[in-house]
């Protein structure tokens, strides 16, 4: 059994105790507007979320001395706390924020992975008789791009399933949180997840 490379969720949270939390009133407003059906609010929100994720990631990297790993979960939650804080935002808006952050994360990561793969050199491929099973953190580029492609295929017939995976994988949301974002029951979310996961595993293995 190959040892799982992935750290437990509980270990991966990182605290931002050296940063002052100053919730952005603007984000709360925009989330409320967006929740109320204002599509333009989304266009304003995306760069804010993007920027926050970027800053957090940068700040995390700077302190990455220890063996901690950073998961999407931590990043998204921290971005939320920093942007929206504990303000009087409703659970629905909070869920919406996570949904949005998951989408932004997916965009950034997949885009980055595609670029890196494009930069991949051709060159003579040497035979490697002793290779590392999962050496470089699950070949992130290849797997991310393959997952993104497969998710798009899945979305063509099952948009809800695809979204569940986006939230779980790119947003790091729990089943419960995913259910909230999608306004589905816990059981349905779990069923969607388990089917989509099997379907994707099979696609990615092919």
């Amino acid at each position, binding site marked *: 059994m*190959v040892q799982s490379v992935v750290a437990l969720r509980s270990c991966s949270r990182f605290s931002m105790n050296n940063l002052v939390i100053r919730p952005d009133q603007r984000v709360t407003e925009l989330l409320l507007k967006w929740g109320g059906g204002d599509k333009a609010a989304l266009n304003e929100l995306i760069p804010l979320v993007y920027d926050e994720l970027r800053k957090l990631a940068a700040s995390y990297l700077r302190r990455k001395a220890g063996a901690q790993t950073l*998961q999407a979960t931590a990043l998204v939650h921290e971005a939320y706390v920093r942007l929206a804080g504990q303000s009087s935002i409703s659970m629905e808006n909070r869920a919406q924020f996570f949904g949005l952050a998951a989408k932004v994360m997916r965009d950034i990561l997949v885009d980055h992975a595609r670029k890196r793969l494009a930069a991949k050199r051709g060159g003579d491929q040497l035979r490697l008789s002793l290779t590392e099973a999962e050496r470089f953190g699950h070949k992130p580029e290849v797997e991310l791009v393959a997952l993104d492609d497969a998710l798009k295929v899945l979305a063509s017939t099952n948009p809800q399933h695809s979204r569940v995976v986006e939230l779980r994988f790119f947003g790091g949301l729990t089943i419960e949180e995913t259910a909230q974002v999608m306004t589905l029951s816990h059981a349905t979310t779990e069923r969607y997840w388990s089917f989509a996961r099997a379907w994707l595993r099979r696609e990615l293995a092919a």
Partner: protein
Amino acid sequence: METPESMQQLEKLFHEAAGLGRQERADFMARVRDSNPDLVAELESLIAAHERPDGFIDSPVYETAAESIAKAQPALVAGQVVGHYQIIAPLGKGGMGEVYLASDTKLDRKVALKLLPVEFTNHKDLLRRFIQEAKAASSLNHPNIITIHEIGEIDSVHFIATEFIDGQTLKQRMKRARLKFADVLDVSIQVASTLEAAHAAGLVHRDIKPENIMQRPDGYVKVLDFGLAKLTEKSSQSKALDSEVGTMVRGHTKPGTVLGTVDYMSPEQARGQVLDQRTDVFSLGIVLYEMAAGRMPFAAATSVDALVSILEKEPPPLDEYAPEIPAEFQRIISKALRKDREERYQTIKDLLIDLKTLKEELSFTQKLERSKPPRSSAGLSTRRAATEAPTTIQDRVVAATADPSALKSVRHNRRLVPVAVVGLVLAGLAIAGAVLWQRKGSTPAISTPARTAQRTLSYWITVQKYRDGKPYQDPFRLRDDINFEKDYRIRLHITSAQSGRLYLLNEGPAGPDKTPAFNVLFPSETANNGSALLTENQQIQIPQQSWFQFDEQQGTEKIWLVWAAKDVPEMEAIKGFANSIDRGVVSSPGLRSPVNEFLKAHSTPSVTIERDDEKKDSLVRANGEILVHVIKLEHH
């Protein structure tokens, strides 16, 4: 083709089947085969996938996410305020960060604001050294060195605000059109004299390239980014701290991404050796060649090929591309581009003197030409002047060589220049060696004179047997020789008694062409932050988080352990291959042969091996700077 309807049906059957026990499921499948023959195969594959342990989808993206996001662009947009700077427009983006045109709202002036990439500023000591150097360069108050207004940190992003040069980089300029020779000479002299001033103050630029040379519309040249290369430098300088820090930071990067380009590196830089001012001589030589020829001397499709060229190949003669260039200029470039820095111009001042002399010669002949009556009614076209003047120079140089007094006047100055070069000779490789995997209990105690500190390394190997894609038996420590099979996995556990550098290579069974194929196992992008440096008594598991796996290729797998007090240049040159793209494969033949030679050269059986059967580990011991040990694993 799947439709929402067929998927819905599939999902329904999937959940029903997933909830059943083994026997019930078989019955269920049989029923599906009757009722939905089209779906049964797909259902079976889905159930199989469902029962497979752990896919990467099961855990949210992690770690790499931070890096990707932090590197994602753009950081700033026009109008955005950063401290007391307001962004006006992005100016460009290089390996060393993004640059913006910004307005300093306090002093109401335009500045160039450079944001340093996060991965280079992680380390305080490195950052401090960079700041020190950048400030030192700026404080020279040299007209050709860009003035730094402020170095600081806003929102945990490090930035440098410098004077804004309203001009273009040499790179941009060369892209537009080939430079006239007079301009080539003019830019060369300005850059060389800038470097001379810097070198005199003990500052080495380390990253001279066309992107770092700017020219204003009035022709004035400014050299940028002094000290910045310090941030990425892998240094093996005597200061222990420096070298550790350098190695660590470099470890995060891959060949070709460190400084944006490796095309202007000197051979010693490519090898990761200690640098002195002669590295700038070489890099400037490349820039001179490129300006004159309109192409790079070591042009290559990939960074690795470029590195090989820099290390091994001679550039094509300049007159292939620029027949009009004076032979003297070709000579100057050739001397600047000597691979062995001992043969190169020893100081930039020597180079500068030759350039200036050439310029004087040129203007002298031009004056001479002008004083002559025009040959035709149309007079001399500039084109003619450009092509004719050099031939005259060539003649004069030949004449000068023949005339001892003339030669003296040209070379005199050079002799007086003190050769201020720090000669750092790597300590000799006192004892090194390799032994085969020993049978248990054998202790070939080979006594070695205790001249230098003894190096000891202990290790053991964990094996996980695999069959049909599944592990069987519990993982165990390798004790007896076993025959490895395809898919078997191993992992090494190493403890070093002293601090030093550890490199681990895999050499596969020799292929038909007999050239050894090397695969860098350690350090790597994901192991020890890419650094070969281990601290005293550090225990390390390689790979850190998974296993090495055997493929179907049979033969003897060698694992080379190289354990050294200092950086091993041959190893440093290839460790960058251990990234997610190259996956450890040393794909450049030019870099493989030095490695092979190094291993051979140190493969004398003078290390001691002790096997501890209780603990099932091996203690490898040697006296000296470098210890090379090979582990052979049989796979048949």
